[in-house]
């Protein structure tokens, strides 16, 4: 007979760990179960090759809620987030557009491509920031159910209504349009330079199975702009030691408050008895007991793979199956013998320290999406790459480098069929060839390479179909619609079952908000003191 726990969290990704840490802080006896031998899920650092450390999946940090960082004492537990300077977008014709840390330099850089755009970017930044301010207020709140008449839902709806009305008529209209426009149309209202538009448009599709011309993609840009590093909105940084450092600090906080983490044991099934949760059965046949089970797995994985269909209503299962969780991106992690030589950046090496994008127009991005629709990876892919080892000395030996390459679009299946090993290799080759075009000799620097298509993301860390956000960030799956209408308050369809992963509002990214929000709801149901902080106001 094993111990009965106050709560069991399935999946030691950043949201599971956040959730467990807040429950443990409230005095609960919490068990964290992780199928892999390592914690972190998609917030992970692994030593793949000699003295190199890879951020295998997520690779930069900005969205992590500062309230969580602070209240879980992540700094004390060793987390350091170091900002990196700027970004650059490289065009096929050898030109580029840089985004520098200095606003005057950035303005002149844009002016180099369009004088008018340089000034319009003030208006653009202002309008994006207005949207950021609105959404940041909602991240650490549980979405109301708009069909409910419960006082809590009504008052939350009123709160949202008031926040919206406070924007004033013009900004309300801007907001309505912003949420329903494509990033391409949205950018057309500000800019004329194709390169500048291309550089912004990437943020509208990262992690999404939509094209830049699809309505709804303007919002996704916001999802990448609403974070900050030390109050610098929209800035991104590296977690020192790779993204696994985020999970490690969270896990240290969790265990420090009495939590138990078990790795290398996969959950086979969530056990329901008499319509209530009673624990989990492991793949090795053992069982753990608790009245509260919190799933940090994706929405489909929780219900389609880890629950008995007999415990769920068919209508609910149909909705789970219809949940849109389409892989659209891949990741290539590379150990380099030296720094790549980007022709366009000769004489401007500072740009290599930041984000580097390979794209130069809206049309090119859209064509990359057409390939995805046709069931293949983009032959001319959009690439977002970084060399963290330039900033973080722990990632690679001196003079050597680790390069993180995010690639879009990459489908979950190739023309309806599972990826073959050969296709994975071909995909890796497409990516290397793409980079080689901008940095001749790049191939020769490669010492080791890890290629992750949606297949690997699904198989290794359980991202269903390889979707990095645990589900598309479209309006049908946002806020009170996420994951599905009626289940946006972190509670599953069975008593005692909770959901804390990125399939839940406010969605994906290493944000820790779903984990924190779910903890607040659980503690509320258990009538325990709330350990989850409120969002900081007016940031």
């Amino acid at each position: 007979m094993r111990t009965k726990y106050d709560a069991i969290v399935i999946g030691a990704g950043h949201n599971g760990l956040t959730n467990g840490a807040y429950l443990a802080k409230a005095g609960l006896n919490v068990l964290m179960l992780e199928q892999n031998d390592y914690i972190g899920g998609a917030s992970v650092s692994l030593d793949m090759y000699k003295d190199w450390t890879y951020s295998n999946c997520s690779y930069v940090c900005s969205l992590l809620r500062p309230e969580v960082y602070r209240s879980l004492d992540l700094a004390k537990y060793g987390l350091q987030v170091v900002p990196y300077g700027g970004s650059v977008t490289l065009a096929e014709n050898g030109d580029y557009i840089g985004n520098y840390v200095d606003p005057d330099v950035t303005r002149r850089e844009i002016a180099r491509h369009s004088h008018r755009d340089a000034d319009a970017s003030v208006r653009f930044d202002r309008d994006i920031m207005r949207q950021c301010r609105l959404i940041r207020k909602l991240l650490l709140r549980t979405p109301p159910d708009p069909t409910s008449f419960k006082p809590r839902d009504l008052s939350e709806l009123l709160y949202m209504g008031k926040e919206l009305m406070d924007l004033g008529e013009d900004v309300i209209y801007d907001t309505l349009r912003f949420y329903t426009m494509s990033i391409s149309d949205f950018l057309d209202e500000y800019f004329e330079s194709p390169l500048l538009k291309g550089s912004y448009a990437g943020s509208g599709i990262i992690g999404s199975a939509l094209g830049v011309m699809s309505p709804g993609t303007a919002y996704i840009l916001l999802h990448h702009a609403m974070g900050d590093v030390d109050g610098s909105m929209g800035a991104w940084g590296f977690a020192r030691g790779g993204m696994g450092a985020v999970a490690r600090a969270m896990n240290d906080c969790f265990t420090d408050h009495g939590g138990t983490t078990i790795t290398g044991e996969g959950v086979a099934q969530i056990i329901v008895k008499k319509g209530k949760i009673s624990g989990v059965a492991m793949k090795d046949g053992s069982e753990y007991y608790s009245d509260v089970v919190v799933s940090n797995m994706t929405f489909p994985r929780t219900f389609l793979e880890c629950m008995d269909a007999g415990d769920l209503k068919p209508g609910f299962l149909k909705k789970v199956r219809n949940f849109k969780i389409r892989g659209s991106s891949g990741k290539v992690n590379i150990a380099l013998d030296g720094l790549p030589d980007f022709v366009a950046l000769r004489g401007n090496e500072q740009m290599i320290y930041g984000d580097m994008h390979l794209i130069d127009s809206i049309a090119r991005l859209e064509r990359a999406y057409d390939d995805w629709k046709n069931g293949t990876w983009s032959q001319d892919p959009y690439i977002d790459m970084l060399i963290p080892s330039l900033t973080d000395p722990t990632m690679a030996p001196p003079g050597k480098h680790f390069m993180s390459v995010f690639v879009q679009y990459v489908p979950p299946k190739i023309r309806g069929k599972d990826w073959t090993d050969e296709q994975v290799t071909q995909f890796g080759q497409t990516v290397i060839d793409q980079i080689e075009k901008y940095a001749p000799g790049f191939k020769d620097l490669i010492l080791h390479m890890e290629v992750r298509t949606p297949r690997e993301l699904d198989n290794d860390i359980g991202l269903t179909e390889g979707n990095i956000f645990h589900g598309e960030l479209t309006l049908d799956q946002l806020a009170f619609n996420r994951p599905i209408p009626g289940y946006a308050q972190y509670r599953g369809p069975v008593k005692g079952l909770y959901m804390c992963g990125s399939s839940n509002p406010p969605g994906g990214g290493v944000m820790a908000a779903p984990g924190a929000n779910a903890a607040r709801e659980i503690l509320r149901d258990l009538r325990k003191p709330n350990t989850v902080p409120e969002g900081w106001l007016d940031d």
Partner: protein
Amino acid sequence: MRTVNITNADHHKTAVYPSPFHSRQEQHNQLKEWSRWSDYLSVPAYWCESLEYFSGRNTCGVFDITPMVKHLVTGPDALPYLNRLMTRDVSKLKPGRVGYSVWCNDNGQVIDDGTIFHLREGIYRVCSQEHQIDWFLTSATGFDVNIVEDTHDVAGLALQGPTSCAVLREMGLADVESLTPFGLDYFDFEGVELMVSRTGFTGDLGYELWIDPDHAELLWDRLFEAGSTRGIRAMGSDALEMLRIEAGFILAGVEFLPAMEAVRPTHTRSPFELGLGWLVSFDKGVFNGRKALLEEKKNGSRYHLVKLDIDGNKPAKDAFVFTRNGKYAGTVTSAMWSPSAKASIALASLEAPHGEPGEELEVEIYYQRELRWSRVMEPCRVVRDVFWNPPRRRQTPPADF
């Protein structure tokens, strides 16, 4: 010389550029401190803020205004275009005249303020604090007009103070004394055209000189030669800041938040709220912000920008303003001890209905003496007139000193 070429891909190698006057500024800059103004290096103080301030009130001071954003507006519709853009009636601005104006968005909120130079019949220069080309071009739809930003093609120096006219005459600018306030004229300077306007940011007698950047250094040299017997001195931005507060001039980003940058839309100000209602001309037809400003005129403004005369001697920097019975009334935007008025003065943004001249208020001032902080509630009053407004500012021809 020309120092900024924005089409150069290597521009990033330095975040900020020397101004066309840089070599001369460097000679005068004994403090070796530099600050940034837009694309250029600027000097906060060359040697002593106080001495530089008094050059502007007693002799004359030279301040580099090259970084100011400049636009050239030409084409058959230049006038109707400017009239739609500006709150002011630009048709009243004759060639050879300069006008101060603000421009607003459709909500009647100030985007920026600046000066319009009617250079020659139908040819205008608009100077602004912030970059404006996106809004200026947006406003140009439907007009046959050509607008270019030519900031880096024109070098500018402000020569401000009682002896400034005499210095210019000494430099050989014949008949410069006949320029009336807000007038401009062209002079030959070593074979190139020098434009001189009787304008400035100090509320005193003063001129601004505009020239091709390639002749900037020579202009500086000739000016200092001509002024050597009339107390000419290079002036930094700290001194200018004192001069402009005494003169009651507003500054973008200080007295008001430019509407294009306002993430919080209610934090902006209308011309009326800045005390600039006199710049709004409703009877000239459509202009940006007209509808909203008409509404505001009917329904009243939210704020009043006022001048405060504060008891005591402690500058009221960043202070809150209260009524005499302790209710919040607003905040100070700019404050200083005025060496010329010998008073603690401030500009403050008060919530309506506060701000009528003569209203008695209090400011909450935090100050320290030898690291010990104190707080004092100083009585103050709203005054109508600016703190420094000598007759010589308007006198034509000006006296020699």
